[in-house]
C-alpha cells in the first residue's frame, strides 16, 4: 500500500466503490405492530451477489426487517411499514407493485423447514407451476433437477422424487425448501435463521450451499450464530432494540467494530 501513490489509492477505492451495486435499498424503514414500534428508521442497503447477515439479540427487529423485504409482513394483521424500500429501482411498497410478483423475485426460506405435504418433485415444482415458468413436462423436469442440484440435494433424492417431502431428514427438508425457493429463479433469497432447527452436520451443508448460491443470487440471512455470520457473510448488519447499530464488512465487524454495542454483543456481553 505504501508503495502506491496517493492518486493510485484513490483510484483503487473509486473503482471499488463503483463495483458496489445495491440490489435493495432500505431508507428510513419503520415497522409498527399495532401501536408497538418494532423498527426505528432503518437505513440498510443490500449489495448484489453478496451474503448480508443480520445479527442482534432476540426481539431486536432483524427478522422484522427481513420480512419487510418481500412484504411477508403483509400477512400479519395490524402490521404497518413506513419508509421506502426499493428492489433495483422499484419501490416495493408502491401500490402498483404486485406483491405476488415481488415475492417471486424475492424468495424466502424459513426458520423451520416447511415442505408442503406433497412429493419432493411437487414441492420444487410448486413455484414454477403457479408462475407458469414451464410449458412442457420436460421443462419442469429440468427446472426441478437444476434446482435440486443447486440446493445440493439432487444426488440424495433423485431416486425418490415422488416420495413425500415430509419424509426427508430435517437438513434435507431445509435444502428442499431452498430448492423450492431457487426454482422460481428469484433475484434475492431471504433466509430467516435457516439452520436453527438443524444439527451441526446439516448446518455445515446448508452454509456451504449459501456460499455457492451467492454466485447467482443476492442473499440476506438472519442468524443467531456469530460463527455462522462470520463464515457465510461478506457484510454484516447489527440490530439492537429496533435500531440498526452498525453495518460493515463482516471481517471488520468481527475484528474491529465501530460501535461499542457491536463489540459487546459479539463478545457475548449481552444478548
Amino acid at each position, binding site marked *: 500500500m505504501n508503495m502506491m501513490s496517493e492518486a493510485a489509492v484513490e483510484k483503487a477505492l473509486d473503482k471499488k466503490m463503483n463495483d458496489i451495486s445495491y440490489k435493495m435499498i432500505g431508507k428510513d424503514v419503520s415497522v409498527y405492530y399495532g401501536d408497538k414500534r418494532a423498527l426505528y428508521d432503518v437505513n440498510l442497503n443490500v449489495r448484489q451477489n453478496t451474503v448480508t447477515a443480520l445479527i442482534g439479540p432476540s426481539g431486536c427487529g432483524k427478522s422484522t426487517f427481513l420480512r419487510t423485504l*418481500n412484504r*411477508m409482513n403483509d*400477512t400479519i*394483521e395490524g402490521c404497518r411499514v413506513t419508509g421506502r424500500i426499493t428492489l433495483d429501482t422499484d419501490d416495493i411498497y408502491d401500490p402498483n407493485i404486485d406483491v*405476488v*410478483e*415481488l*415475492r*417471486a423475485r424475492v*424468495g*424466502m*426460506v*424459513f426458520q*423451520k423447514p*416447511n*415442505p*408442503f*405435504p*406433497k412429493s419432493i418433485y411437487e414441492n420444487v415444482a*410448486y*413455484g414454477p407451476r*403457479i*408462475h407458469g415458468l414451464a410449458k412442457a413436462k420436460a421443462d419442469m423436469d429440468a427446472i426441478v433437477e437444476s434446482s435440486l442440484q443447486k440446493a445440493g440435494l439432487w444426488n440424495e433424492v433423485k431416486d425418490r422424487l415422488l416420495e413425500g417431502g*415430509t419424509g426427508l431428514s430435517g437438513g434435507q427438508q431445509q435444502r428442499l*425448501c431452498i430448492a*423450492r*425457493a431457487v426454482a*422460481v429463479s428469484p433475484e434475492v433469497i431471504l433466509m430467516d435463521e435457516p439452520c436453527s432447527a438443524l444439527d451441526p452436520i446439516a448446518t455445515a451443508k446448508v452454509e456451504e450451499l449459501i456460499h455457492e448460491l451467492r454466485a447467482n443470487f443476492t442473499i440476506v440471512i438472519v442468524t443467531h450464530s456469530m460463527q455462522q455470520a462470520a463464515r457465510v457473510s461478506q457484510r454484516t448488519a447489527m440490530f439492537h432494540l429496533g435500531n440498526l447499530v452498525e453495518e460493515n464488512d463482516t471481517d471488520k465487524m468481527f475484528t474491529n467494530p465501530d460501535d461499542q454495542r457491536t463489540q459487546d454483543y459479539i463478545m457475548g456481553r449481552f444478548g
Partner: protein
Amino acid sequence: MSISLLLLVVAVIGVAGYMVGSWRANALAGGRLSNLHSRPGYYGSFVAIWAMLPAIVVLLVWIVASPIYISSTVRAGFPEEVKATSQAEQNLGYNMIGAIARGMAMLSAEEREALFKDGTTARSLLATKGVPLAADPAPYMLKSADDLSRMSRASSTFLSILVVLAAAVGAFFSYRAIAPRFRARNRVEGVMLVGLIAASSIAILTTVGIVASMATEAIHFFNRVPAWEFFFGTVWDPRFAAAGSTDSSGQFGLIPLLAGTLYIGLVAMLVAVPVGLFAAIYMSEYASRHVRSVAKPLLEVLAGIPTIVYGFFALVTVGPFLRDLSEQLNGLVTGDYSNFIQAQSVLTAGFVMGIMLIPYVSSLSDDIITAVPRAMRDGSLGLGATRSETIKRVILPAALPGIVGALLMTASRAVGETMIVVLAAGVAARIQLNPFEPMTTVTVKIVSQLTGDLEFTSPQTLVAFALGITLFFITLCLNIYALYIVRKYREQYE
C-alpha cells in the same frame, strides 16, 4: 329424619371436618407450611371426603335395600289364601297396603284404635286425610299396613343413626390420620380421579345400555319377522292388525325407508357442503379478526336452533314457496299452471336439513383449516403464490382428510335427523328418483310406529326398534370411519 335433612347433616359434618382438618394441619405446621407434605386445604378436604363419602354410600345402599327387605317381610306375612293368588294381584294388594300405611301415619291414636276395631271405615277415614283408596281394604291389609309403617319408621331411625355415625367415624379417623408427612394431597387427588372415571364410565355405560335395550326389542321383532324380509324387503306396508285377527302382520321392507333417508341426506349434503366449506374458507383465510369475531358466532347460532323450528320453516315457508314457484315456472313454460314440486318433498326436506347442517360443516372445517400450520401458508406465500392459490394447492390438500372426516360426521347427523323430515318429507314409503315427490325416512317411520296406541308386543311397534338399531349402526359406522380418517390426518404433522 328425612333424607334431605340427613344429607344436610352429613354436609354440615363434612364442612366442619374440612375446617377442623385444615386447622389441625395449620397447628401441626407451627407457622412453617413447608413442614407439611400438603397444603392445609388438602388435609381439610381429606377429612371432609372421609366424613361424607362413606355416609353417602351407606345412605344410598340403605335407600335401595331397605324397601326390598321390608316388602319381602310384609309379603311373607300375607295370609296363605292371598299368597296363592297371582303375582300381579299381590302387587296390587301391596300397593294398597302402602297407601294405607301412608295414611295411618297421619292418624291420631284414637282414630287408629277406631280403625282397627272397624276396618270398614278405613276408606272414608283415610279419604279425609287426603289418601284415596281404590277399594275397601281386606282385613289382613290393616295388619300388614301397620307392620309396614312400623318397619319403615324403624328403618328410617336406624338409617339416620347409621349415616350420622358413619360420617362421625369417618371424620374422626381421617382427623386422627393427619400428620405432617401424611400425603393428603395424593389421597384427595386419588378420590377425584375415581370421580372423573365414574363420570366418564356413566356416559359409556349409558350407550351400552341403550344398545342393549334396543337390541332386546329388535330381537323380539326378528322372532316375528325374518331378518332378510326386513333388510331386503322393498315394500313398507306394516298393516295394522284388525281387532281380533292375528295373521295380518304386513310387510316390513327397510329398503324404501333407507332409500329415502339416503336421498334426503344426499340433497342436504349437496346444500350444506359447498356453502359450509366456502364459509369456513372465508372465515379462516380471508376474514379479518373483527369480522370473524362477529360472523362466526352468528353462523353458529344456526346450530342452536331446535330442529323442530327448522321443521316449521320447511312446512310453512320453504315447502309452499317451492310448490308455488314450480307452479309459476310450469305455467310460464307450458301454460299449464300445475305444480310439479310437492309441498312435502325430498327437495324441501333436504334443502332445509342442508341449512341446518351448514354450521356443522363450517365450524368443523374451520377448525381443521385453522389447524394447518402457519408455516405452510408462509411457505406458499413466500414463493409468490396468491392467497387463493395457497388455499387451493396447499391448505385444502393438507386439510382434506380432516374435512372428509368432518363431512362424514355431518352425514351421520343428516341420517339421524328426525323433526325436519317428519314435518317436511312426507310419509309415503316408496322407491323413486324424483326429488320433487315426497319420500320418507327411517326416523319418520320410527316416530309413526311408536306414537300410537298399538300394543307394545306387536311387530308393528317392535319394528321401530329394529329400525332404530339399524340407524344406530349406520351412524356408528360413519362416525368410526370419520374418526379413523381424522386420526390418520393428524399423524401427518407430528
